[in-house]
Every structure is written in structure tokens, then in C-alpha cells.
């Protein structure tokens, strides 16, 4: 169960796979992990990223333009898993590339390529019965989005069906950076807490250490996406991994030992931080006995 936020707040780093190249994403991913990221979200680039703001749209367009496809992202996942056995890996995709592969085939492949979980942007719980079933059969953790607009009845079903963590969207809108974390986020996490003890990660608009600290007051983890994708976009070619490593290191207060896990960026190094012990834990206790409730329990959501 490598999805584990043993140091609070946990850090989840989103990367658009293949931007600027698959090789670069690999180096960036390792740098992020070695500098304190607990979980990586590997974004599968898609031609029509309608939930994303301009930064991730541009990254996605560049990667699609390079011909990066789901199978490449799976291969990337496998390599990262090999290099960093203790890191959490969540594949993050729009539904269509997954449908093209086949839900069942995709879940099987995701497992084989070392992923721990999957988040499908445009898959809601009510439509997800078959998906959830295939995920469970392969021992994968489905992560669902929870939004400030979701009524309590929906949050309950979302919490029941999510494993690993629940992705709480900090504000109504698309991905992108913002100046402060809106109060929407705290309220949403509080509402989710009525129904679950599973980890809750807050994402959308988290872009610096202050935001991470603010999120740490009320949630288990912070998800940083556009800020990192934007940093990659602005970095000199070849310098992306270094820039991201430094950025991720700066996201947590210095006294936190897990925040300064120094590690080599060399692809063939063994996992440098398994000795921290943090990642050997079994995570949150609820994950041990996954909820029996599946998407099939959704009818009470009106």
C-alpha cells in the first residue's frame, strides 16, 4: 500500500507525462519523490482536457503533439516503480484513452505497471460500477473527486468508493494556480469527514509552501499540479528535474525530516529513502478493509 501520508501534510505531485519528454518526466518524477513527494499523479495527456486550465492544457497539447499515449505512461509508471518501490503512483487520465484500451485491460495493465491507484477525471461514482470492480479485482485503488458543489449524499458515496485518498477539489473551477486556498476547501474536507477516516488530499490551486501549510491544518495531503507543470514549462531544457526537486523540497517546513529526503536522481539507483521507514507503514487503517459499498450503492444519491 504505497499510498501513504505518514508525514503530515502529505505531498502529491501531478505531472503531465511526456512534457517535455517521457525521459524528462522520469527524471522529474524521481526528483519529486526524492525531495518529499509521497504520491505521484502521472497525467495521461489528452486532446480535450476540459477540466484543466491553460497551464495543463498547454502541457497536454505538447505531449499529445509528441505522440505520447497511454501505453507510454504505463511504461513510465513501471520504470518509476522499479526505481522507487516505496512511492505512491496514481494514474490520472480522462476516460477516453482508457475506454480505447478497455476498462478491464487497462486496470490489469495499470497493476502490472506498478500503479497503486487511478483517477479518471470524467468518471463519476454512479457510472463507475464496472470500473470499481475491475480496480478492486486488480488490487488497485480508485480515487474519486469530491467537489465543493457535491451535496452530502454524494460525498458519502464518493468517500465510500474512494481508496488511497479522496481528492477534494479546493474550489469550483478548472485546474490552475491561485493566490490563496479558498474557504471552500476547508468546508468540503469537514463535510467529507462526517463520512470517512480515509485520507483526504486537497488539490486545485495549491502552489506554494504557505498553501501546503494551510491545507495541512485541515487535510491529510496537498496536491500540487499546475504550479509544477508551469515550473517545468519555464525551466531551461534539461534543468526541469532539478527545479522541481528544489521546489518540492521547499513545500514542507524544514524541521520535518521527511521533507528533506535527499536522494540521487540517477535512474538506476536503488530506492534511496526506504530507510526512512515512513514508506513501510501500512497507511491508514481503513484501507485494510476496503468498503463493501461499490457504485452499485449509488441509488440513494438523488
Amino acid at each position, binding site marked *: 500500500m504505497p499510498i501513504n501520508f505518514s508525514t503530515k501534510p502529505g505531498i502529491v505531485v501531478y505531472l503531465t507525462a511526456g512534457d517535455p519528454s517521457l525521459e524528462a518526466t522520469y527524471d522529474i518524477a524521481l526528483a519529486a519523490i526524492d525531495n518529499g513527494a509521497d504520491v505521484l499523479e502521472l497525467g495521461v495527456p489528452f*486532446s480535450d482536457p476540459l477540466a484543466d486550465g491553460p497551464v495543463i492544457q498547454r502541457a497536454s497539447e505538447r505531449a499529445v503533439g509528441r505522440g505520447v499515449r*497511454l501505453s507510454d505512461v504505463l511504461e513510465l509508471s513501471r520504470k518509476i516503480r522499479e526505481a522507487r518501490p516505496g512511492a505512491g503512483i496514481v494514474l490520472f487520465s480522462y476516460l477516453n484513452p482508457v*475506454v*480505447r484500451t478497455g476498462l478491464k485491460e487497462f486496470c490489469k495493465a495499470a497493476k502490472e505497471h506498478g500503479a497503486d491507484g487511478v483517477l479518471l477525471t470524467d468518471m463519476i461514482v454512479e457510472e463507475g460500477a464496472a470500473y470499481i470492480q475491475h480496480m478492486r479485482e486488480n488490487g488497485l485503488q480508485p480515487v474519486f473527486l469530491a467537489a465543493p*458543489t457535491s451535496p452530502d449524499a*454524494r460525498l458519502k458515496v464518493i468517500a465510500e468508493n474512494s481508496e488511497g485518498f479522496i481528492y477534494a477539489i479546493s474550489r*469550483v473551477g478548472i485546474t490552475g494556480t491561485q493566490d490563496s486556498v479558498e474557504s471552500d476547501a476547508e468546508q468540503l474536507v469537514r463535510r467529507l469527514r462526517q463520512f470517512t477516516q480515509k485520507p483526504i488530499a486537497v488539490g486545485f490551486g495549491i502552489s506554494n509552501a504557505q498553501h501546503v501549510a494551510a491545507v495541512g491544518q485541515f487535510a491529510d495531503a496537498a496536491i500540487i499540479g499546475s504550479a509544477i507543470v508551469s515550473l517545468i514549462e519555464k525551466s531551461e531544457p534539461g534543468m526541469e528535474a532539478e527545479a522541481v526537486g528544489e521546489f518540492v523540497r521547499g513545500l514542507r517546513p524544514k524541521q520535518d525530516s521527511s521533507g528533506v529526503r535527499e536522494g540521487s536522481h540517477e535512474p538506476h539507483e536503488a530506492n534511496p529513502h526506504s530507510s526512512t521507514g515512513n514508506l513501510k507503514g501500512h497507511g491508514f487503517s481503513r484501507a485494510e478493509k476496503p468498503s463493501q459499498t461499490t457504485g452499485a450503492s449509488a441509488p440513494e444519491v*438523488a
Partner: protein
Amino acid sequence: MPVLEDVGNVAEVTRSIGTGRFGAYGGRYVPETLMAALLELEQSYAEAQADPAFREELDGLLKHYVGRPTPLYYAKRLSEGLGGASIWLKREDLLHTGAHKINNALGQALLARRMGKQRIIAETGAGQHGVATATVCALFGLECVIYMGEEDMRRQELNVYRMRLLGADVRGVHSGSATLKDAINEAMRDWVTNVRTTFYILGSALGSHPYPTMVRDFHRVISIEAKRQFAEQVGRNPDVVVACVGGGSNAIGAFYEFLPDENVRLIGVEAGGRGGALGEHAARFQKGSGGGLPGVLQGTYSYVLQNDAGQVAATHSVSAGLDYASVGPEHAMLHDNGRAEYTSASDDEALNATKVLARTEGILPALESAHAVAHAMKLAPTLGKEKNIMVNLSGRGDKDMGIISRELELGGAPAENRGTR
């Protein structure tokens, strides 16, 4: 082929308007942020439908403001020239704003007003849905933002001016191929961001439940009228109904009341563009390589033009309104179960049909509608004289005069024509 399997097992949300499923197709595949809004919309629509006052107000406006019913017109010279079946035109082009789109825009605007939403957004391809939406927003005093691909703004320039004159804020979209699909992406991003205050008037029988059902319901009036008119004017149903299919709203409206009448052939005509290779057309139902495959785009499961990695393909059509990579889910079902047939007409065939209809009947069709005319022109000579074909003439061609004059080489006008004031 891999599909979104096991959909039959999917839990049913409380769905007051049908199931949101058309066979395996349809559904609700959206970011969670939109779910509350979709559920609210579904419920409000169900309440509105059950309220006779809503229907009464809509019918009154359709009659006195929009100009319904539209005529069913026998195209005598066109039919006789082709020497086969009789071609009848259902004249949606005569509606206020010049296309069928206003049937739906008006219905949804009334619903928005009922829900207390003051801000309206919409996407548009050919500009006809944008013009219809801007029109009803002016009528009801609602704020109006229209997203339109920049390529479409260029080729449907007149409609951009019309929307602006009507008070709409027209926002150009330059991402992707800068056409209808990209405009929908941007409208959905706006909706996700402003979901608490904004009503999205989607312009075709596309997107997540309840849109495909709701949009179809607002266009059903086309076939309700046509069925009655055929009974009165011909004494029986048409043998064939032909309509162009972009997202599929005019076609589903023209087909719907005839669905139970198995001996009425229903034919949807897609944009054949300039060839069968992926990227050269918008014929989602084209067989074999270059055609569409089941997939999820913009909230619904249907046929999608895409590559083998699941990236949505570029499309091409001379008509902006048919230039879209996916198609309404109800058409996907009608395609698979064989109740409707789908074919395509090329750019050149549509342009030729435009010229023929103009010169035989004095009617200038929209380039979208000209695809349906083009197919009827192919079909009529193969059928007996006693047969009747209805063509749904979804819109008029004024908006296309720039393209048509270039393509058909109609000659120049005086270079400087500033008009008078």
C-alpha cells in the same frame, strides 16, 4: 472492439427523465463539480415538463415569436428535374434567426429563467445556435456569453456580428482546431467555474444526461408537425426522412415521431468533407478505417472520431455546424440497432446541392442542410414516383454567403462598399 463494458450493471441514479442511456450510449461522464448542476437541471426540467404553464408559454412563443409551425413544402421543380420520388422540404430555415436551433435555445432559456439563473453561456459552431441563444437572452434580459472557435468565427463572420448586435459577449477559442469541439471544451470550463450562477444552453443533442434527452424533446416539434402535415397534405407518412447530422439535434427532432413507424426510413447525413481519411471529414459512422469508434467525449459515451490511442481526431467540413468529432448518443443507438441509416455527403456535393436548390426552388439552404439535400438528390431518382422523401431543411444559407461565393465563384462586388448612413 473495446467499449465501455458492463454499462448494464451501472447503478441508476434517480433519473426522472428517462435513464440518460440510449442502449449502451449516453450517460454522465463529467468532472464531479458539474454533477450537482446536472442533477438540478434534470429535476428542474422534469418539473417544467410536468407544468402545463411552461408548455403553454413555450408553445405561445414558438408560434408568435419564432414562427411555428413551419411549412411542409413540395419541391416540385427539384423533384421533377431528378425524375423519381417527390421531395418535400420541412422549412425550419424559415424560423426566426434562420435555423431549427431556436426551438431548443428558447426552451432552455425559459428553463433558465424558471431556475433563476441570470447568466447564460453557450457554444456555437455555425453560429446559428449562438445567434438563437443571443436572441432569447435579449428577449428575456439575460447575460449572454458565447464561445466560438476562431476558425468558425472566420467562416461564419456574419453570425458573429449578429450575436454582438444582440448584446452577446462572443469569445473566440483558439485551442485545438478552433472549431465546435474546442468551443464546447471552453464552455464546459466556464460552466465548471461559474456553475453556481450560470446556465449552459447546450446547442445539440449532445453532452451529459439530461441534455441529449432535453434537446431532443425541444426539437420533437419538427416531427410532430411534419407527421400531421404529411397526413393532411399527402394522406400518409413520408417513405423516407433525411436530415443532416452534426451533433444530431435537427435530425433527432425530425426522426423522433416516426421512430415507431417502422416503414419510414430514417437517414442521417454526416459531413463527408474532402475524403475518407481521419481528419478529412466528420462522418463518425463511416465504416472501417477513418471512421469513428465508441468513446467518451464531452460528457457522453458515443461514436468519436479518434486515433488508436484514444486522442480525439481533427475533423473537416465545409459546414461549421457538422464539423464535430462526436455525435449525439441517441444516434449511436439508432445506428447500432439499425433503426436509422447514416451516410455522408462530401463538401462538393453539398455545395452543388446548394446551387441546385437555389436555382430550382429559389431556396438558399445552409451548408449543413445542403448535405441532406445532396443525399435526397442521390436517393430520389432511385425511388419510384409514388414515393415521398422529407428533407429537414434545418437552416437558411445567408450565413454561408462568403464561403459559397468563393467556392461557386459567384464573382466580385465593388471593392469599396461602405454603405450609406
